[in-house]
């Protein structure tokens, strides 16, 4: 047990009485569980009594004293999921993993847990794997969920993922297209802009897939610096009035073909972005294959949960 690591986590939340839960969360994020020794060190460093810390840690279900597996599978057994046969899905997970709920596989790959409600009952039965939500799960999908988890959920499947779709953008000043068909990223024409930082000036190619953060550039750009974006045609600086919701750096607006504005954060490495489409289709309809033939009434704000519609 690394005492200095616990000390560092405590220092981050120093002087904050309500910081105990944040500290416990950080410890759990670091070790995957709450080691008894860490709680003792924490009691010494923060001056809370061990009893109080233990009381808080046992009160919340998200804290665990047992070492968890690499992937955490939570099956919702709330009322709505329960009536849609979530217990059978849990049994299927238990059968395929060979463990009971609350246990970890011997190879430390999977931990299986039940939760009582995730607050998204319309999507039930719900299974959450490492923060990724799977909705309307049935027993047939259990093996594919496990397969996906083994392959790594953070790898983005471009074709299958509805949240990722290509957009075509143009300069917000001169309205000339920024697309560069000669340079493909993710298999689609990239978005070409000129950037300057630290007295360097060169091109930057962004993926045109909304949701993908792949880029390539002439010079290597260090993380966390704010970069100035320019249009390669009219050389005007692409800078907007709004600030990134995640880091506060200025946003870079670009016009989306078909109507709308996409804004990306000018801080290199920050994934803040915003898409505002003023086109005919909004929400999930934008990317739906049936959007032209859909017979359901489409609300003004677009459809964001389309199971009933398609």
């Amino acid at each position, binding site marked *: 047990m690394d005492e200095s690591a616990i000390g560092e986590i405590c220092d981050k939340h120093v002087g904050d009485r309500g910081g105990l839960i944040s500290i416990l969360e950080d410890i759990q994020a670091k070790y995957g569980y709450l080691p*008894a020794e860490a709680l003792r060190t924490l009691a010494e460093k923060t001056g809370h009594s061990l*009893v109080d810390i233990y009381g808080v840690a*046992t009160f919340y279900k998200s804290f665990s004293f047992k070492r968890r597996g690499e992937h955490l599978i939570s099956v919702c057994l709330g009322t709505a999921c329960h009536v849609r046969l979530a217990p059978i899905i849990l049994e299927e997970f238990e059968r395929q993993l060979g463990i009971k709920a609350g246990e970890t596989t011997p190879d430390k790959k999977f931990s299986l847990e039940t939760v009582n409600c995730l607050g998204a009952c319309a999507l039930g039965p719900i299974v959450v794997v490492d923060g990724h939500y799977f909705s309307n799960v049935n027993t047939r999908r259990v093996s594919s969920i496990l397969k996906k988890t083994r392959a790594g959920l953070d790898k983005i499947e471009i074709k299958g993922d509805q949240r990722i779709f290509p957009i075509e953008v143009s300069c917000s000043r001169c309205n000339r297209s920024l697309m560069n068909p000669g340079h493909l990223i993710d298999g689609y024409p990239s978005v070409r802009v000129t950037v300057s930082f630290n007295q360097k000036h060169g091109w930057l190619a962004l993926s045109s897939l909304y949701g993908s953060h792949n880029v390539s550039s002439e010079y290597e750009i260090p993380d966390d610096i704010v970069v100035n974006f320019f249009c390669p045609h009219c050389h005007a600086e692409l800078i907007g009035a709004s600030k990134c919701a995640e880091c506060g750096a200025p946003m870079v607006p670009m016009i989306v073909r078909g109507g709308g504005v996409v804004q990306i954060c000018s801080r290199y490495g920050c994934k803040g972005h915003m898409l505002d489409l003023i086109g005919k289709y909004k929400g999930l309809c934008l990317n739906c294959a049936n959007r032209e033939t859909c017979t359901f009434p489409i609300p003004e704000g677009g459809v964001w949960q389309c199971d009933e519609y398609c």
Partner: protein
Amino acid sequence: MITLTINGLDLSVEKGTTLLEAARFFGFPIPTLCHMDGLSPYGACRLCVVEIGEGSKAKLVSSCTYPAEEGLKVRTASSRVVKARKMILELLLASCPQSKIIQDLASAHNVGQQRFRQEHEDCILCGLCVRMCKEQMMAKAIGFRGRGEKRSIGTPFDIKSDVCRLCGGCIYVCPACQLRCTYNEPEKAICGACANLSPPCIEKEEFDDMMCSMEPCVACELDKD
């Protein structure tokens, strides 16, 4: 001074007095389980409920945590209060039927039987021992753990706490297992708490007579002879 009415009697009490203290001072008995002088009020057992307010606004509050208010009308033994108290006693009796204190209270309130499924818990989660440990013994060795039906009282990780001095204060105040400790014969104990805690006399040399609540203690008497 604050003037209020308890059972139709106009009284005045110091600011900051709780309804329980005021009522007891003027001679109105209110039964309690989780209240003890010297420990902070907690409001866990709800036995001390009284009715305040009038007409449709009348409500039941726990008198041990409710501070006296100007012009408050309090009834300590209205039919609604008595009914609520009987129900609470029945529930307590169902969870801890062996407790002498709860049995006595129930019989004093004419609760002759209880209609609920009999549990055989050895704890009513009144928190007396937790407050005793923290506020009087300055140890903070035991506390509440978990929540809901899994809530329990004990030491962190269920192992003997480093800060526990084996003073026995927790057993002394416990309304569920109090006075059932069999001192130097823990195997004869009904509740088994002594077997888990090991009474101070077993390590007498180490702890001497430091804040020992076990009095009179058979072990000590035998030691003297």
